[in-house]
């Protein structure tokens, strides 16, 4: 059927068919093409994970040979389970502390009216991320170590006779974890604060809510998705911490990262270390899945 011009309709020029097909193909594949560099980059990492998974079920402790769950069974020992428990405890505690510290920081930065002050605050919070973890940990040692600034000052003032043990225990590691992961929580919370418009808080105060009340009733619930994502980033970061417990724990606080390294370095138990690594990945993955589920549940009510 053809439409001729004298029927009064404007003639529509048909698009070349090949052009349309190329266009559709292009549109479907463009996202994948754009992802390609990133996919290439993470491929070696994924391969390493698979390699580790394979190693963890190896029958030989020093090479990949045969299949056995022996490595996992051997993990069920008090020293490793204590390490798992310690990791969970320190990661969870540090996450809680970091969130409590990060909320007021994020609110302060977002509500600062002067743009230059806001920039100064942002840089101050960001600074630790620019510095290497090792340097940050050495910083704490210089400050809190047995021969550090605080102990020296207190000794010379005659307040104490022997240096206080401020580091090389769980509290020291906790301090390090909190400090190094704080910026990771502040930035997601800053962007989450955009949802909390000033008018909501004004509306609440107009209805009779004090500042604390509107913080609890309005700000916190609206920040929930941001809190959950900030919390899971911090938890994952701290559960897999290595440098901080190594330097500030003085090998006495054996978080999972250290426990795994000990299996390799003095013991040459490669399959055990691989199995330990898989347990660590599993713990973190479970926490991330759980928090994603929490976010999606809370966004059902219309908070995105």
């Amino acid at each position, binding site marked *: 059927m053809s439409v001729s011009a004298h029927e009064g309709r404007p003639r529509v020029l048909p698009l070349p068919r090949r052009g349309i097909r190329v266009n559709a193909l292009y549109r479907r594949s463009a996202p994948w093409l754009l992802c390609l560099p990133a996919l290439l980059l993470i491929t070696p990492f994924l391969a390493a994970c698979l390699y580790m998974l394979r190693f963890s079920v190896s029958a030989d402790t020093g090479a990949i040979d045969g299949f056995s769950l022996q490595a996992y069974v051997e993990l069920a020992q008090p020293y490793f389970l204590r390490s798992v428990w310690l990791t969970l405890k320190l990661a969870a505690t540090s996450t809680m502390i970091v969130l409590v510290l990060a909320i007021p920081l994020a609110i302060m930065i977002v509500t600062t009216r002067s743009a230059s002050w806001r920039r100064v605050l942002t840089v101050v919070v960001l600074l630790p991320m620019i510095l290497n973890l090792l340097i940050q940990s050495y910083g704490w040692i210089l400050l809190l170590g047995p021969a550090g600034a605080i102990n020296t000052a207190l000794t010379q003032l005659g307040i104490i006779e022997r240096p206080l043990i401020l580091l090389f225990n769980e509290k020291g590691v906790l301090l390090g974890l909190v400090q190094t992961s704080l910026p990771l929580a502040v930035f997601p919370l800053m962007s989450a604060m955009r949802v909390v418009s000033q008018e909501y808080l004004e509306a609440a105060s107009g*209805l*009779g*809510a004090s500042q604390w009340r509107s913080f609890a*009733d309005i700000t916190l619930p609206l920040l929930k998705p941001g809190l959950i994502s900030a919390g899971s980033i911090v938890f994952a970061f701290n559960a897999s911490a290595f440098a901080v417990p190594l330097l500030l724990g003085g090998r006495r606080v054996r978080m999972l990262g250290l426990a795994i390294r000990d299996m390799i370095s003095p013991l040459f138990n490669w399959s055990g270390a691989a199995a330990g690594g898989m347990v660590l990945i599993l713990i973190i993955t479970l926490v991330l899945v759980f928090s994603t589920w929490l976010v999606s549940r809370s966004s059902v*009510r*219309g908070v995105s």
Partner: protein
Amino acid sequence: MGIDLSIASVSKKFGQFEALKGIDLDIEKGSFVCLLGPSGCGKTTLLRIIAGFEKASAGQLLLGGNDISRLPPHKRDFGMVFQSLALFPHMSVAENIAYGLKLRGLSKLKRDDRVAELLEVISLPAIADRPVSALSGGQRQRVAIARALAVQPRLFLLDEPLSALDAQLRDAMQIELRQLQQQFGVTTILVTHDQTEAMMLADKLVVMKEGEICQQGAPQDIYRQPANAFTAEFLGASNILDASASDQGQVQLSGVDTVFRTDAPAGTALKLSVRAESVVLDRAPHLSSGPLGEVEFIRNLGASTEILVRTGVSTVRVRLPSRDSILQDLRVGEQVALQFDAESCVVFRADAA
């Protein structure tokens, strides 16, 4: 009825900028007051000072005789509807409306009763459990109003709440808002830049310009007797014509005497405010005493027809019913005379503020 809210020489500075320059305003109990003005005139700042979201740089607010200037917002006892409505997105409709009641310590049972009652008033009885994101624009509007009125506040404050709605819905909401306000009898202050809205809602109209009150009074009075060119123009007068005073105390337009008299000395610059619908065309100009002009433009707007007539330096807008026989065969370029209906014109000095 007595004075409910008394605003006494309230001023506000933001740095160097004077947003409010000594506002004095008395608001009667149960009345509906509209603060009307262009953006930047300070109307919203004044409302925010009444609410306590901004602190006045000077001056006093007396609510029922008590000074509330130093009270924080949550102790001032008002209900407010924001421009963005600011419904809490993490709460259902019922939770939004009940929030103020919850803060006042009402039991769950009493809260539920009150919410049901209010939803009935805003004629949306079935939406209590919906999230606010599932509501239409008009529904959100009503819920925001219900939330503000639920706590039975002393003052009901509205900051351009209808500006986001389309024209038809806005019209319906204006009527509803007025009815609700009368039903609750609550002292109400509404900020708007829409003169029709202000005219329709207000018991008392307060026209503001650059941080000052230009004129206040009943809307019809201001409409009929604007005090200056600004108010006249803002209230929709379509013609503000340059005029002058003659030796005989007559108002002259383009050198021709008009029917208006003035006590201003000869030569004083005057303004003549005329509504487009109050000008009469005379198609026999040689017999007329009014100022002459030439038809410049004609457009039919359906029910009415608008004609622009050029006279001397100014162009006069004339609006006539389209059925008017005088329009027959009227052409661009035709010479006409203009007659003004003395009742509906206002003369003021060009420098009046």
